[in-house]
């Protein structure tokens, strides 16, 4: 038909899952991306216990992310107890926290979180890049 044609084969789901902007109808069903907050405490894998402890004074948990903002793990205050001298975040973290994608339907997610007593759910792209967290208020 005379066009230079390209095929974005990963499609709309890929674009949305990356957290990239789209046009949405105002009455579109709510998803995790609509409720997520971006003020998330994060640190590098090599952050010291002291640095993590300081962050935990202001936040219930700290997410460990690499240089590409891929989520590697999470640390809560009780995981610092008895930490050896010179320990770094990567050695103390609980690796691979449960995450959801931005497209996750919100109401069922909130219901599951409440049922499981989970107050904060990490939202990542399909490549594991941190986008935000959904918090139960």
């Amino acid at each position, binding site marked *: *038909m*005379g*066009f*230079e*044609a*390209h*095929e*974005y*084969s*990963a*499609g*709309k*789901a*890929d*674009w*949305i899952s*990356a957290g*990239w*902007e*789209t*046009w*949405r*109808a105002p009455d*579109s069903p709510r998803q995790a991306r609509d409720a997520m907050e971006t003020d998330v405490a994060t640190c590098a894998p090599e952050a010291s216990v002291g640095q993590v402890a300081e962050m935990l004074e202001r936040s219930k948990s700290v997410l460990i992310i690499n240089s590409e903002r891929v989520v590697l793990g999470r640390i809560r205050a009780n995981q610092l107890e008895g930490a050896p001298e010179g320990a770094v975040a990567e050695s103390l973290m609980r690796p691979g926290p449960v995450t959801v994608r931005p497209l996750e339907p919100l109401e069922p997610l909130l219901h599951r979180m409440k049922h499981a007593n989970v107050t904060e759910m990490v939202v990542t792209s399909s490549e594991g890049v941190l986008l935000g967290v959904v918090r139960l208020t």
Partner: protein
Amino acid sequence: MSPRAVDRHEVRALLAQGAQLAEVLDKEEYDDEHLIDAVHLPLKALTAAGVEASGLDRAKPVIAYCWDGL
């Protein structure tokens, strides 16, 4: 010649150079959400007449997309 497959980073780069987006899903899905400035061009309308009616500019590249696989 078959369309060239591109990832989302390439899509962004092409858009910056003036490429156009065409969503091939049905109207309900397009109306609910689409990539910004994408036109609606369902698969069944992929004819010369359908493309003409879509308003796409033949002088600019077109990037077609579906939900998660074309």
